[in-house]
């Protein structure tokens, strides 16, 4: 199921001021210093740049009053704030229920209204970090921080949690809440009341194994080895059955003394086995192990 809300900063020129028009997902934007930026991005080519000089800048998303909000965003800090500032908060009107704050030393702390309830180690400047925040009126707020090699994984680099200021909330606020000087970027911001919000980027390694085998049969003729060119399945099955021109399934039945069996069924009958796959039964007949299908077939002596 798709998340409740995504905040995209795409589609605007670098330096364009963020407004409720350029980012319709926002219900209100306050202050100065928030722009669309092409300097860096996690998704697409634009992110939110918050660059304030003794000022604040926030954007607000309103929701029907509820007990829980889950939120994920990426942050890249260029300049730590001169004064501790709120990066994200859930509020009932202006009453803060829970907040994620960036401190002057680069640490992140969780606030329960006006009380700090947990503190992380410092986030490195000049790198993306993923913040996965779960603010729940059931009693707790939890922040998972994913950094470095963990950035796009399900393994947090740090997890901090603490109390939530009891009560529902009806707005979600992001940005830099106090009048201070700071610069950071945010991107891939999403919210949802219930869903866990994983990484915006899912990384996988795809391995394509090629199993080309070079096969040849050799015959002793007059004391000399003469390499025969590679032959197909029909050739070898006709060779073994003493027939000519039959399709593989016909030749396999002729060799096995069976009628109307499928190819693998006839070969299993010949081998006295049941249920082996094609390469398995041919290795059984050849007295070999691990050869590819055609190689095993070629190795079967008449």
């Amino acid at each position, binding site marked *: 199921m798709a998340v409740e809300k995504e905040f995209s900063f795409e589609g605007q020129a670098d330096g364009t001021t963020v407004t409720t028009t350029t980012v319709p997902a926002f219900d209100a934007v306050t202050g100065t210093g928030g722009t669309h930026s092409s300097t860096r991005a996690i*998704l697409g080519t634009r992110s939110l740049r918050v660059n304030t000089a003794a000022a604040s800048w926030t954007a607000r998303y309103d929701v029907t009053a509820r007990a829980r909000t889950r939120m994920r965003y990426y942050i890249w800090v260029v300049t730590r704030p001169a004064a501790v500032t709120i990066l994200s908060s859930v509020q009932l009107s202006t009453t803060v229920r829970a907040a994620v704050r960036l401190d002057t030393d680069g640490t992140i702390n969780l606030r329960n209204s006006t009380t700090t309830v947990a503190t992380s180690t410092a986030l490195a400047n000049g790198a993306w970090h993923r913040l996965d925040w779960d603010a729940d009126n059931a009693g707790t707020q939890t922040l998972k921080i994913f950094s470095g090699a963990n950035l796009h994984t399900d393994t947090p680099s740090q997890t901090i949690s603490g109390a939530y200021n009891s009560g529902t909330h009806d707005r979600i606020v992001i940005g830099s809440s106090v009048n201070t000087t700071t610069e950071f970027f945010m991107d891939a911001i*999403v919210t949802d009341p219930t869903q866990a*919000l*994983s990484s915006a980027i*899912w990384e996988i*390694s795809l391995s394509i194994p*090629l*199993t080309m085998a070079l096969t040849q*049969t050799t015959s002793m003729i007059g004391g000399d080895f003469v390499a025969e060119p590679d032959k197909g399945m029909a050739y070898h099955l006709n060779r073994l059955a003493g027939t000519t021109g039959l399709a593989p399934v016909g030749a396999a039945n002729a060799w096995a003394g069976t009628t109307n069996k499928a190819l693998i069924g006839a070969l299993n009958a010949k081998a006295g086995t049941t249920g082996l796959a094609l390469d398995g039964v041919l290795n059984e007949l050849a007295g070999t192990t691990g050869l590819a299908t055609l190689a095993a077939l070629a190795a079967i002596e008449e």
Partner: protein
Amino acid sequence: MAATLETAAKNTIVDGFATAYTWFAAHTAAPSSGSNQTGSRGQTTWGAASGGARVGSAVDISIGAGVTVSHVSCQSASTSGTQAAFEDIADHVFAASGVLRITPTVTQA
């Protein structure tokens, strides 16, 4: 009997594959000739062959919100073309729009 392939021959084989197949796609079900595709295909740049293998650059494929990706494939062209291989991967639900980043490797055993 099966002959032993030398490394140079293995490199030749993977070079042939890499020349023909550079595009990757995401799918919501098992693909056949590129079917069930979600998002646009992305192109890798294969590194040089070494030891019978070539590693490609990461391919980013944008995935829409609410989509579950279950398979990935290797293709010969940005659209249509020939499907070379596909893999059934662990299902991943993109609750929000995001990126599937594929790092491919082709190996001749």
